[in-house]
C-alpha cells in the first residue's frame, strides 16, 4: 500500500490535471461557439455557389467539351486524397476518426489497383500518416499561425490542388473532413471535388433559362476553380467547429474522470490514515497492559 505522503502527492497532481482539463473545456466551449457561428455564416455562399453551378452544368450544351474540372480527365487511375485534420491534439477521436476513414478508403483504392497520392492539411494528420504512407504524401500544408479558418488559407489549398490537376498529376480528388453534426457527434466525410458530382436533382433545377455573359463554358471555367476553394473552405469551417466540439467533450470526460479518481484516492488516503491511528492506539494500549 502506498504511503500517506505518496497518496497526498497523487491527489494534488490529479487535482491540478483536473484544473487544466476544466480550463481547456471552457476555452473549447467559447471557441466552439465562434466556430459554429462562422460555419453558419459561411453557408449561404457555398449554397449559392452550388446552385449557380448546378444551373450552369444543366444548361451546358456540349457535355464532351465541358471543362475538365467538371467532367474529369477521362481516366480514373490516380487518386489524390486531401486529408484535413487539426494542428493541435487533445481533441478525443477527432483526428483518429478522419484517419480511420481515410485509411479504409486507401486500402479500397489499393485493392482496385489505383495509384494514391496524399496531401495533408494540418500537422496531426501528417504525423499519423507519415509512418504507413510516408512515400505517398506529396505535400503537407499547415495553418498553425492563423487563428481561425479563413478564406485565404482555403484559396491557397485550392490553388495548389488546381495547379497539380492542370499538370495532370491526378484524375480524381477527394477531401476528407469531419462534418459537424452536434457537439458530441462529428461524422467523418469523404467528398469528391474533382470531377465535380452534380446531383441530378430535378427539384432544385429551375426551368427558367438564364442568359449568360460571356458564354457558359467561359463562366464555368472561371467558376469551377472558385468552387473548389469554396468547398475546401466549407470543409475547413466544419472541421474547426468539429474540432472544438470534440475537444470540449473529450475534456469534459477527462474532468469527470479526474474527479472520480480524486474521490477514490481521498477514500484510500483516509482509510490508511485511520489504519495508522488505530495501529498506534493498539501499540500504546498493549504497551500499557504489559507494564
Amino acid at each position: 500500500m502506498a504511503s500517506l505522503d505518496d497518496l497526498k502527492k497523487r491527489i494534488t497532481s490529479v487535482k491540478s490535471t483536473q484544473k487544466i482539463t476544466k480550463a481547456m473545456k471552457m476555452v473549447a466551449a467559447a471557441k466552439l461557439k465562434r466556430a459554429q457561428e462562422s460555419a453558419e455564416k459561411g453557408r449561404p455562399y457555398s449554397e449559392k455557389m452550388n446552385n449557380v453551378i448546378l444551373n450552369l452544368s444543366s444548361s451546358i450544351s456540349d457535355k464532351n467539351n465541358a471543362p475538365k474540372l467538371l467532367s474529369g480527365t477521362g481516366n480514373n487511375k490516380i487518386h489524390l486524397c486531401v486529408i484535413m485534420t487539426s494542428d493541435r491534439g487533445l481533441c478525443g477521436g477527432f483526428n483518429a476518426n478522419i484517419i480511420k476513414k481515410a485509411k479504409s478508403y486507401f486500402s479500397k483504392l489499393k485493392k482496385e489497383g489505383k495509384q494514391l497520392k496524399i496531401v495533408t492539411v494540418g500537422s496531426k494528420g501528417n504525423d499519423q500518416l507519415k509512418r504507413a504512407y510516408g512515400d505517398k504524401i506529396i505535400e503537407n500544408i499547415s495553418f498553425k499561425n492563423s487563428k481561425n479558418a479563413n478564406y485565404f488559407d482555403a484559396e491557397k489549398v485550392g490553388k495548389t490542388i488546381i495547379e497539380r490537376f492542370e499538370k495532370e498529376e491526378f484524375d480524381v480528388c477527394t477531401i476528407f473532413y469531419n462534418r459537424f453534426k452536434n457537439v458530441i457527434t462529428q461524422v467523418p466525410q469523404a467528398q469528391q471535388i474533382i470531377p465535380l458530382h452534380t446531383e441530378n436533382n430535378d427539384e432544385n433545377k429551375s426551368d427558367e433559362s438564364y442568359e449568360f455573359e460571356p458564354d457558359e463554358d467561359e463562366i464555368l471555367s472561371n467558376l469551377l476553380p472558385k468552387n473548389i476553394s469554396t468547398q475546401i473552405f466549407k470543409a475547413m469551417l466544419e472541421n474547426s467547429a468539429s474540432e472544438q466540439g470534440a475537444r470540449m467533450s473529450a475534456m469534459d470526460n477527462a474532468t469527470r474522470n479526474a474527479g472520480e479518481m480524486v474521490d477514490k484516492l481521498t477514500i484510500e488516503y483516509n482509510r490508511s490514515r485511520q489504519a495508522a491511528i488505530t495501529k498506534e492506539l493498539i501499540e500504546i494500549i498493549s504497551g500499557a497492559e504489559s507494564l
Partner: protein
Amino acid sequence: MSEEFKIEIVNPDKSFLSKDDVTEVIVPAFEGEIGILKDHISIISFLKPGIIKIYSQTGEDKFYVEDGIIEFKSNNLSVLTSSIYNLKDIKKNKIQELLKMAEEEISKTEVNDQTKYLIDQKIDVLRSIN
C-alpha cells in the same frame, strides 16, 4: 407597382449586405458594365475589378470588388465575391496596398493575357478611386 428588387452580397465567411429596396444596380461584368433594373431577364455573369453601384430609396452605395459572380433570378440579385470593400469605409492606405500588390503581380512575366487584362483593370479602378 413598386420598382424595387432585392440584392444580397455574400462573402465566403458571412453575408455582407442584404437590401430589399433597391431600384437599380450597376455591376462591372466581365464584358462591360451591366445595369440591372427590376424584371431583368435571369442572368449569370462574372465580375471584373470595378465598382458596384447600388441605388435605393435611401441613397446610393458604392463598393469596390475584385472578382465575383452575379446571379439575377426572379428579382433577386445575388453577388458572390471574396473581396469587397465599401468605398466609404476603405482607407487610403488600404487602396495603396492593393495597388502595390497589383503592380507587383503585373510585373511578373508569367501572367497570361486574361489575368493581365484583369490586373490592368484593377489598377485603373484603384487609381481612379485613390
